């Protein structure tokens, strides 16, 4: 069934665009005014996103869709925007991540460059557009918008390390964009349309002589998406780039890999479902095994990282791998758990990237980007570690009564623990609920790949817990007399908010899982999506003041 959102559906795209244009007119100065405008606009965007999600969640029908025709052209000819449960979930996540990063940036980072606020709004516009569009070429345009903004955000703050990582990041993404274009062109050549629903509808009728071309086009398109999702072996650019980015930019990037995952999930379930005739399940094995290798790579990378920022980047890779692998199984129950995991890991990843800087701040005073991981910061070997003089060891214990833990350190320790629990998927937080839902679904599949994923999910949780615990011990249990870090309320607020959202996901896990399962069921019944899009009618033209 379709839900009538009227013009609300296009608002998440137009609002950031208008805000960015307005702030560009304000010039380079007037940061205070820009900050106010930016926060207001981002909050409004989040409110719109939540109202879209609630509007769709209200309906119990197997699938609810909001369809909007921006140019009022009839369906296969014009661009279509569609909000289903999956899109609405992604849009809300974008709003949350955006607002948190922005609030964090207000403390210091907004002063590090001239056009932070403008780039930030354009980034949001690209993300919202990519999640809402139902047109393949329009998806390309929004990809380019969000990538162009991310190039600027990655370089925000400057410095040799960022520029070096930025050059690699831009090159990889430009090549991926060219592959995207080739894939779109081939699909257009075979099916004669760019509307995703129309493509899916016409695929079963593609003649056998064109089927090879169709598969080649789909595979090239998938490579472009998977490079953005960080699938091994297309992900070597990711850890240096994310570790070099400034904290708020890296926090926004936590959702950029999810754009690639979203595009694969949307197009693969739409175009190659079990009922697609000769192309049914095309490439599913590649997704499953590619995802599994990526998950293993991410878990091992987490263990090997000496730097918290790189560790966070590898945890993003591990969560991408999990998601891509679950897509390939084509099982609604598993996808339902995976979507819950997507929300949980995005919020935790964003909070982790924000925490990285606060934790590193006591060691590193200047704003410069972190150095390359050259092994010089390695932990001392276990037996070589000598306690510094004056350490309060058990042998000659002094009473510690009356020495309070500084509030900032207590906050950092607590949030880091919560963040680590969510990332590693330990009870009682949302990461655990998500992993449990996926593991339960995997038990029902009974294939070698499903068992491999089952084992890898548990092992990656163990590896994640170990590596995060090691970092936590190094940061909180070392005995050096460091001055306690200075935090501002505006910096702690977004981290606390993100973790509170994660906590809310546990308290409302029943409703949340019901929502993501409904979203997954709708994804695995693509006929519903096709009917909703193809059945959309343009608004009849109002004829002036006819008698």
């Amino acid at each position: 069934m379709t839900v009538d959102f009227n013009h609300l559906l296009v608002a998440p795209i137009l609002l950031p665009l208008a805000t960015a244009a307005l702030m560009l007119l304000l010039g380079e100065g007037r940061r205070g005014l820009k900050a106010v405008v930016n926060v207001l606009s981002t909050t409004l965007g989040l409110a719109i996103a939540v109202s879209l999600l609630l509007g769709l969640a209200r309906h119990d029908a197997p699938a609810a869709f909001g369809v909007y025709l921006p140019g009022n052209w009839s369906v296969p000819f014009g661009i279509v925007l569609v909000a289903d449960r999956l899109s609405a979930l992604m849009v809300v996540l974008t709003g949350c991540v955006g607002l948190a990063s922005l609030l964090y940036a207000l403390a210091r980072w907004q002063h590090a460059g001239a056009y932070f606020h403008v780039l930030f709004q354009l980034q949001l516009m690209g993300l919202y557009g990519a999640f809402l569009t139902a047109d393949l070429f329009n998806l390309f345009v929004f990809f380019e918008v969000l990538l162009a903004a991310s190039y600027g955000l990655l370089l925000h703050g400057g410095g040799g390390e960022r520029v070096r990582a930025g050059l690699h990041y831009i090159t990889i993404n430009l090549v991926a964009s060219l592959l995207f274009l080739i894939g779109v062109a081939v699909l257009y050549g075979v099916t004669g349309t760019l509307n995703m629903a129309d493509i899916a509808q016409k695929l079963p009728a593609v003649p056998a002589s064109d089927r090879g071309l169709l598969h080649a086009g789909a595979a090239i398109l998938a490579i472009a998406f998977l490079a953005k999702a960080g699938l091994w072996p297309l992900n070597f650019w990711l850890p240096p780039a994310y570790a070099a980015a400034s904290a708020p930019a890296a926090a926004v990037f936590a959702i950029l890999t999810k754009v690639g995952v979203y595009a694969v999930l949307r197009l693969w379930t739409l175009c190659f479902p079990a009922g697609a005739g000769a192309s049914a399940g095309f490439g599913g094995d590649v997704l499953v095994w590619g995802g599994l290798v990526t998950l293993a790579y991410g878990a091992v990378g987490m263990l090997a990282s000496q730097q918290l920022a790189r560790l966070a980047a590898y945890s993003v890779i591990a969560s991408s791998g999990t998601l891509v692998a679950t897509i390939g199984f084509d099982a609604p129950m598993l996808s339902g758990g995976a979507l819950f995991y997507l929300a949980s890991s995005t919020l935790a990843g964003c909070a982790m990237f924000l925490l990285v800087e606060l934790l590193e701040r006591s060691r590193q005073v200047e704003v410069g980007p972190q150095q390359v991981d050259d092994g010089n910061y390695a932990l001392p070997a276990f037996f070589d570690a000598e306690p510094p003089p004056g350490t309060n060891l058990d042998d000659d214990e002094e009473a510690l009564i009356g020495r309070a833990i500084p509030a900032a350190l207590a906050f950092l320790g607590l949030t880091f623990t919560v963040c680590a629990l969510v990332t590693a998927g330990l009870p009682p937080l949302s990461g655990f609920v998500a992993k449990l839902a996926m593991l339960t679904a995997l038990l029902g599949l009974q294939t070698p790949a499903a068992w491999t994923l089952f084992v890898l999910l548990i092992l990656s949780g163990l590896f994640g817990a170990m590596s995060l615990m090691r970092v936590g011990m190094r940061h909180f249990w070392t005995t050096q007399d460091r001055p306690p870090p200075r935090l501002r309320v505006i910096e702690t607020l977004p981290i606390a908010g993100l973790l509170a959202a994660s906590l809310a996901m546990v308290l409302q896990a029943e409703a949340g899982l019901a929502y993501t399962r409904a979203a997954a069921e709708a994804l695995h019944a693509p006929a519903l999506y096709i009917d909703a899009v193809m059945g959309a009618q343009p608004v009849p033209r109002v004829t002036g003041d006819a008698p």
Partner: protein
Amino acid sequence: MEAVISIAIGVMASAGVWLILRPRTFQVLIGLTLLSYAVNLFIFSVGSLAVDREPIVRPGVVADLVNYSDPLPQSLVLTAIVIGFATTALFLVVLLALRGLSGGDHVDGQEERL
């Protein structure tokens, strides 16, 4: 005409791929540009190659792909050219910034250690 176009696309794409794998930033930039030319030509060729069949409907001629070429790939190419041009310009800026910061034109910011 098909052979000429495909050879042109192939030569540009292979030259572009080779240049992207080179260690100098300017070579990578030229490689990206050549690749985007190849891709643009490829998109253009998707809309059926024909001479003298411009996609403007003339009275009395049936509007189908036998009498006209497909206008959509041409508009896609226009969009792709604009976006590719903008991102290449951005790449050029980053290239210059890296050169200024590292003093060299190696893509890794430093020469390989031998």
